[in-house]
């Protein structure tokens, strides 16, 4: 199967091409630069370097969030519209699961998270076989860490934003927390592609971002309705 994988859900921008099940090319940057400008040139480059034409693709994989609302939409719009144009399936993969897979061989729990400001994180908890232990959620990091503490098992924490929360992690989890070096903290697009290869694609139009949060205006509106 030939798969193009796209991830622009956070600062990391990743593009991978899988040809006949093997990783043919992967392009990853981790810089604060505009995904909308850089994504299609990156896809063009990786496809050219791997001698692939868009019509050679059998499937498109995309990180569907959570993450930056705008970032998630850029990746998803691109993946959905390319797949629709080519008449091939598109498969969404959780942006958190994509990071969690970096710890796939860890003996214990794997906790990927993205900082969501004001002490909040987007997170979820995975077992070492990459099945889900605790569903993805938008939660106060402090509360989440106390939940992890109760598991009483080693937890591998994976996040680009580790520095923002490191103090709290060490304070609450102590030796239970395992914090690897920088290269383990970001999602690899080739892994997104391989997860997508095994998933059953759903209807294309129905694939929408997993924001894990309603817009602020809507939250305020709902609050007012309750008054």
């Amino acid at each position: 199967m030939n798969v193009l994988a796209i991830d622009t859900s956070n600062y990391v921008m990743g593009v991978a091409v899988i040809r006949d099940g093997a990783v043919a090319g992967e392009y990853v940057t981790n810089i604060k630069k505009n995904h909308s400008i850089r994504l299609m040139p990156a896809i063009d480059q990786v496809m050219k370097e791997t001698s692939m034409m868009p019509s050679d693709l059998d499937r498109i994989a995309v990180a569907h969030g959570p993450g930056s609302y705008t970032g998630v939409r850029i990746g998803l719009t691109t993946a959905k519209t390319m797949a629709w144009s080519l008449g091939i399936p598109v498969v969404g993969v959780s942006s958190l699961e994509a990071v969690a897979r970096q710890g796939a061989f860890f003996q214990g729990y794997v906790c990927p998270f993205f900082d969501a400001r004001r002490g909040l994180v987007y997170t979820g908890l995975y077992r070492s076989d990459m099945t889900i232990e605790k569903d993805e959620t938008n939660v106060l990091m402090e509360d989440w860490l106390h939940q992890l503490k109760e598991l009483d098992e080693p937890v591998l924490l994976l996040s680009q934003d580790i520095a923002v929360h490191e103090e709290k992690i060490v304070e609450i989890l102590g030796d239970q927390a395992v914090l690897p070096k920088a290269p383990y903290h970001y999602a690899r697009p080739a892994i997104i592609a391989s997860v997508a290869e095994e998933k059953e694609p759903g209807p294309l139009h129905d694939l929408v971002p997993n924001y894990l949060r309603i817009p602020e205006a809507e939250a305020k509106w709902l609050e007012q309705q309750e008054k």
Partner: protein
Amino acid sequence: MKEDQYILAIETSCDETAVAIVRNETELVTNIVASQIESHKRFGGVVPEIASRHHIEQMTITLEEALEDAGMTLDDMDAIAVTEGPGLVGALLVGVNAAKSIAFAKQKPLVGVHHIAGHIYANRLEKEFEFPLLSLVVSGGHTELVLMREHGSFEIIGETRDDAAGEAYDKVARTLKLPYPGGPQIDRLAQEGEETIDFPRAWLEDGSYDFSFSGLKSAVINRLHKAKQRDEHLKPEDVAASFQASVVDVLSTKALRAAEEYGVKQMIVAGGVAANKGLRAALQEKFEGSETELLIPPLHLCTDNAAMIAAAGAVAYNQGHRAGWDLNANPGLDLELFGGRKK
């Protein structure tokens, strides 16, 4: 025999997800608009984040509907055009990235289009342009007089110094507690009222084609406030009629004066406010007996749509303009620079 040329266009600059196909620059093949107005109503205006969320849900559905309606496939298209700006950045991004994706997947040329150029070109789907022409662009975000000496060239000879006409409508409507969107509501009320209040008209300095509506807006709000304090009953119909009279008087008078000074063959009204009955009537009256032909597009081409982007995009495409894979949403895109950009 020359083969037919087809341009598929996408427009997502505000709260409509729109896809259209135009043949040979001027023939409308299909024009699909998925409106989100119901979703924004409860907030009393367009919420950008919610608009963006709707766009990504609607984008491929709308594309498919357009192709089905036209009975065509992407392979039939000669190029893909898209609104690159101005507009809400998050909303624009969905359209721009969708257009790039189609163009890349099918290896088709890509053309970026200025939203206002689109509004002007909507008229070309009804009647061929004759240059020089002037366009009075009136919408929620714009009020300007644009001179075109030839295809693809735009010279702004007057623009608003504060609020756009549509913005003033929305603010006055909110003060009158009319439901969103306020513009059409005021127009409707104005039809039933009379001009009983003499609101100011901002003519600005002699010879200027600029506009200003913030003074008028404040005058209306102050007058309503005063009436409330005095327990005086002002008929909302009359307030609407008086406010609208001031707006359309300034717009139509300046439009006619500009048309005469520049000796233009056509005066094209463009943008969402072109749907306003009061404005249409005032312009028709002013331009009666004028050498300049007045063109006002049908309603479905006044509000945001992708047919207008296809019409403008087709001209840009035939003039040799091409966007690269790095095309981005540009919320502050400048109309004159857009017209003068390099090929």
